[in-house]
């Protein structure tokens, strides 16, 4: 049973799995070439397009802040829409999550039903929901709030359910052993564990909804998006840039604030004694003060919790959001009484939406969907090609110049703040209507979005194999190629399909701003009350999303 060295293979046998991988990537390249041609993209046109965008920016600069009061009031409206939409989603998601989580669900039927609602609510993009609600209730922020609230259930409900399911089992058992009812058990053992994660989820969704609500104005749902698109349509480029700048700064500021609050909430970090933060003079003082306050409370047998820094922080945060919420409800341009009085009108629209039908537009629907798919393929590929080098620069464990990595991260984070439809509006203004500006705008978003994903995965690469490779005397490039890349392939594949999935959904609404794809027909069908056609298009989109998800699943299996 011995093999002589001369007859031994020097290359491993080719496995079926490898063949499948090759077939897949060849098919993908073929699809990319087809999509590139379908969209009439060209490398030369690419540079002239970039020139056009640069020209537009030249004409937009310097921004004109003369109508700052209108910009501010639109921005505030956008902010309130995001806040109230998120709050609505939180309120709706809580009972759904309790029903969906296996450790709190009242039964199998309730669990299945709530899971289905959570999944379905994410299926339709918020801007399409907003357009439908604008058709039902007329323009204004209310349809926008409603759209954000319903769409956000998809993410908030699922993450809430995850947080509830992640609650440790032992406190639950201990509380049950005392003889509690189900509601008492949930409130005393499960909820206290899930709350930090639930708050973090809500804040995170608020950031996302802020970007989302900024574009809802494009379909008449109020806010700064309306201002930007109107300004660009009437060639008032300088005020448009002013509005974009304000939006950009506000989104960035809120993202930074919310990220730091989220970080201080998660896990043990909220407690000064437990948090792993660097010790500082100030922190030591706070810890001393806390223990003094605690001692005094127990010495006097106080029956209420003392005001430790943790409690002050928690209560003031709650008060802050409480006040913000009340102000939002009172000042946003919605007459709540009428709004909730007319909410039944949705059912009229819903009735008109079934059964789905092509209404004689079958070929338009199919070519629109195909174009959207082509846009998604080209923009994801182009974006990923830009994202990869960006990610290498951003990953702190790979880029030896730490300040370059930090700078790149901030740069990408800042760019990520601009909603893709706003970029699309700008590109369409520069290059005219069509799929090419839409594709390029989407590529920019894929690049920054993907760069963050890839950089995070690169930073998670295990250092042990890298050390081993370096220890044999490999150069930095050799080390990267033979120890980092092999670890990165599998997360890359799953991120790639995630991006394709996300940005196919985005490509279906590009048409709203004239960026090509099915979006134009989709918006038209809503505007002319052809709701059966709307449903048909949404179904088509849903089918393609399912197909992409299935392909991604298969490919992940190939690379596991």
């Amino acid at each position: 049973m011995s093999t002589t060295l001369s007859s031994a293979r020097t290359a491993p046998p080719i496995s079926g799995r490898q063949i499948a991988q090759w077939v897949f990537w060849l098919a993908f390249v073929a699809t990319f070439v087809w999509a590139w041609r379908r969209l009439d993209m060209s490398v030369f046109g690419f540079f002239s397009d970039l020139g056009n965008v640069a020209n537009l920016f030249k004409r937009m600069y310097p921004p004109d802040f003369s109508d700052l009061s209108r910009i501010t009031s639109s921005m505030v409206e956008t902010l309130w829409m995001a806040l109230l939409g998120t709050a609505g989603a939180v309120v709706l998601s809580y009972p759904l999550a309790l029903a969906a989580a296996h450790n709190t669900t009242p039964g199998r039927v309730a669990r299945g039903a709530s899971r289905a609602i959570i999944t379905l609510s994410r299926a339709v993009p918020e801007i399409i929901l907003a357009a439908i609600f604008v058709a039902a209730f007329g323009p204004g922020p209310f349809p926008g709030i409603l759209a954000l609230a319903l769409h956000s259930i998809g993410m908030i409900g699922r993450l809430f359910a995850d947080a509830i399911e992640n609650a440790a089992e032992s406190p639950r058992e201990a509380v049950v052993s005392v003889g509690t009812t189900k509601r008492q058990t949930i409130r005393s053992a499960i909820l206290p564990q899930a709350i930090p994660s639930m708050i973090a989820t809500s804040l995170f969704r608020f950031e996302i909804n802020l970007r989302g609500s900024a574009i809802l104005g494009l379909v008449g749902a109020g806010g700064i998006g309306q201002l930007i698109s109107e300004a660009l349509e009437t060639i008032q480029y300088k005020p448009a840039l002013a509005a974009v700048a304000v939006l950009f700064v506000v989104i960035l500021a809120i993202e930074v604030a919310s990220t730091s609050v989220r970080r201080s909430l998660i896990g043990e970090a909220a407690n000064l004694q437990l948090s792993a933060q660097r010790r500082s003079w100030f922190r030591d003082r706070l810890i001393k003060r806390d223990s003094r306050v605690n001692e005094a409370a127990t010495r006097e047998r106080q029956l209420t919790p003392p005001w430790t820094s943790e409690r002050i922080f928690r209560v003031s945060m709650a008060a802050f959001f409480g006040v913000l919420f009340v102000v939002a409800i009172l000042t946003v341009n919605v007459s709540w009484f009428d709004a909730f009085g007319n909410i039944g009108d949705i059912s009229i629209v819903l009735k008109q939406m079934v059964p789905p039908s092509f209404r004689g537009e079958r070929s338009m629907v199919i070519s629109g969907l195909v174009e959207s798919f082509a846009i998604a393929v080209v923009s994801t590929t182009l974006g990923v090609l830009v994202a990869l080098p960006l990610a290498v620069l951003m990953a702190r464990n790979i880029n030896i110049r730490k300040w370059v990595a930090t700078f790149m991260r901030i740069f990408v984070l800042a760019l990520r703040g601009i909603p893709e439809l706003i970029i699309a509006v700008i590109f369409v203004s520069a290059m005219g209507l069509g799929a090419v500006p839409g594709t390029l705008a989407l590529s920019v978003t894929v690049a920054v979005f993907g760069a963050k994903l890839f950089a995070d995965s690169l930073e998670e690469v295990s250092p042990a194999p890298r050390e081993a490779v370096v220890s044999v005397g490999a150069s930095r490039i050799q080390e990267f190629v033979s120890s980092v890349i092999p670890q990165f392939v599998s997360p890359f594949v799953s991120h790639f399909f995630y991006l394709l999935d996300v940005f196919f959904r985005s490509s279906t609404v590009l048409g709203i701003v004239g960026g090509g794809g099915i979006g134009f027909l989709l918006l038209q069908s809503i505007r002319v009350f052809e709701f059966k056609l709307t449903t048909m298009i949404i179904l088509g989109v849903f089918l393609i999303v399912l197909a992409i998800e299935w392909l991604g699943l298969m490919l992940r299996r190939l690379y596991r």
Partner: protein
Amino acid sequence: MQGVGVRGGDAVISIASLSKRFPNGTLAVDKVSFDVPAGQVVGLLGLSGSGKSTLMRLVNGLHKPTGGHVSVLGRVVDECRSAELRVLRRDIGFIFQQFGLVGRMTCIENVLVGSLGRLRGPRLGVRSYPKALRTQALENLERVGLLAQAFQRADTLSGGQMQRVAIARSLMQQPKVLLADEPVASLDPESSVQVLDLISRIAREDNMTVLCSLHQVELAIGRTDRLIGLRDGQLILDRLTAGADQAEIMALYRRTGTAQSVETRVNQLA
């Protein structure tokens, strides 16, 4: 007296050929029978996986038996409906190996949870509990020597302190029966002794009936009245602690252990 399982008028816990087979086929408790009279402190011995935890959970109805009966305080646990079970559990304190505290909540709030069985409706936050109960919670924390930590988060405590908070939580129930499932298995030797001394002291002061599972024989001696031993879900030892010799009991385990492994080896060869 009602029900099948109650034998002998003064038995607080009465177990009659009790069995539990889990859905995956494991027979965790195999026809175990014994009675515990009021005020007795019983040490339940056995290696891990011998069925101690399951037996404890059968006693307060966290698990349903697949055979036999168990009654506590004159009520047949396995025949209780969920509302009756909740009423019964109020009189049975339960102490867990993993403490079962919510780390983010303060100690006093974790202790207050013990009074939920007597309250209506869900509670969140110390201030949602009546003042009288809060005073009682402070008293119980004082009793376990942790008054000073009342308003600290539970996750800032050491393991031994956490288990003492859990004992204070059980005291809120003013239980007549205390079940302690491996209360010191996650603790260092010094805290183990402290926690067990606290349990046996409180049990005698409040005249509680205690079933306490342990896997170290030496810890049971001197703190219990009676020793019950399980192996593979079966009762293999039941005697008074007085006069029990550690080496003798250890030997019992060793012998059975060896006997079993010889047996399986013989079976494998056959």
